[in-house]
């Protein structure tokens, strides 16, 4: 692999690390966008330019923005940072980190098995992707439509403001 990949990969990893260590949620999300962008670069390097574009547009562009918007809507940014600082103590993160490190080691071991030496990168152009998508996988696309419909209906139903909230906590605070 060329240096471009390593640089992109390093950026992705470091920015992701920043994501998981930030106290401020806004900062974390911005770092995440950086990470996603660098992954888009990796996509490009791996011969998937269309996916790179989708990564930027949808992941970084749509999903993350949605979350940022949501966070801003709840006006959470600075308030929660303090809480987050309090929560994010070694006591909390050491155990899981060790566990995850073990998982990472295992994954690395598995990925770096010697048996698979072929390392060529084949470019798959968007046209092929499109043909495949709307060829054999047309039913899958329709299914994805169903999936999104489920998401929409679910989000619609759940996102509505509650008319009556019978939670005692709220009753207590309102009265």
């Amino acid at each position: 692999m060329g240096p471009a990949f390593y640089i992109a990969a390093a950026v992705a990893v470091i920015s992701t690390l920043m994501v998981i260590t930030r106290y401020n949620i806004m900062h974390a999300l911005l770092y995440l966008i950086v990470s996603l962008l660098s992954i888009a670069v990796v996509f490009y390097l791996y011969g998937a330019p269309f996916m790179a574009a989708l990564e930027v547009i949808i992941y970084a562009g749509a999903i993350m923005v949605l979350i940022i918007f949501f966070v801003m809507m709840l006006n959470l940014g600075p308030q929660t940072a303090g809480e987050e600082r309090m929560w994010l103590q070694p006591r909390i993160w050491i155990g899981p980190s060790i566990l995850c490190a073990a998982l990472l080691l295992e994954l690395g071991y598995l990925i770096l098995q010697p048996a698979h030496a072929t390392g060529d990168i084949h470019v798959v152009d968007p046209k092929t992707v499109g043909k495949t998508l709307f060829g054999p996988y047309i039913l899958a696309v329709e299914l994805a439509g169903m999936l999104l419909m489920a998401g929409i209906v679910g989000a619609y139903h759940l996102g509505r403001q509650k008319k009556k909230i019978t939670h005692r906590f709220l009753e207590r605070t309102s009265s």
Partner: protein
Amino acid sequence: MSTSDLLSLLPLLILSGSAVIAMLLVAIRRNHRVMHAFAVLAFLAGLLALFVQPYTVPYIIAPLFVVDAFALFNTGLILVAGLSVLFLSYNYFEQREERKEEYYILLLLATVGGLVLVISQHFISLFLGLETMSISLYGLIAYLRARERSDEAGFKYLLLAALSSAFLLFGMALVYAYTGRMDFPGVGAFLKSVGSVPVSVVAGFGLMLIGVGFKLGIVPFHMWTPDIYEGSPLPVAAYIATVSKGSMLILLMRFYRDIDGYEYTILWWVFAIIAMASMFVGNWLALLQQNVKRLLAYSSIAHMGYILIAFLAGLHAGQEAVIFYLVAYVITSIGAFGVLAILSDRVRDAEMIDDFEGLFWRNPWLATIFTAMLLSLAGIPLTAGFIGKFYIVAAGVDAGLWLLLVLLVINSVIGLYYYIRIIAVMFQPAKEEQPMGRMPFFGIFALTALMLLLIWLGVYPSGLISVIREMMLTMG
């Protein structure tokens, strides 16, 4: 897309189409009764569509789907389960001050996901089916927003399902990276061609197992089950217990067939350990549980352990046993949750064990049904659960899984305790004579039908057995 393709996928298409129509119906006018009727009709149409299938031999709709007798049977099973849940739903939701209509859309969509799982033979369709179901379930679980615990349950399910999906995807990616195939037969063919199976592929299977195991609710991916059962509306809990778990189980069976999963002893052992752990953990957790919904959740963990034993017993007797047990379990679970649903009132679900005190003397019929269901769960004769358990043990003995079977026996005994505990409570003298409200006709009708089915299968299982057997034989 040929006509026969479409005809083969008719149940799926009918349900998808009716989901869209249902959404339009909601847009036109909200009416609970109409929506309910429509959903029932959709399920019935789906069931009818099973009978116009053009082919009896496996029909492959490349690359995603395969429609064979196994798929048709299980499609039928899922549709019947969904239909029974629908019967229980109307009254349950009618009592609650929510918008009820979206429930039916989501239920239809979830069923679509389940049906896709049943016929899929490709990672993509697997993933999409799974996610369609999951995302519908997020909405369903948290459906009753007025309730304290519903969001909590919904969010927990969402996060854990997404996490497990991530594992599933990563496992698939590993398999894909090392085999270059994403369809099950292709993966199987590749593995057969290479001779020694690369460990990374096995590890990929292992990671996929996390996703599958999460849906099945087996140890150690089981922890969501009680919380989600408790937090979700009762019909939804019944749905999760049956359709969601069942379709995943069927997918697992198909996958295992296609990749010759029984060849990998290491996977076998992983499953065996999971089965043992599931039985013990499930039963121990249920032992003194006071909340019947949670209790049923824990018992479902144990039951999945039992099913895994049958699953491990091999391709023939074992998988037959799995299907039979699944049928019995579906009937029983819906029946049990149905009784809870009927007993629930506007304010809260009938979920604490005290709610059942003296039920037999207050409402003998409902108590009889519940008793039958619990006995079936416990595997007592005259119920389908007994034949199911017998089938499992038979398969296990045939395969020589003595250790697992002895553990199964121990667990059955532990399990017996808590089922009997509920029965005992029901037969205690009632504290005060509180008259029961009017019983919903559809609910009672559905439950009675389920109980009769349960007893029929318990007394005369030959019919179902031969159907299952024929079906498995056509798969080879």
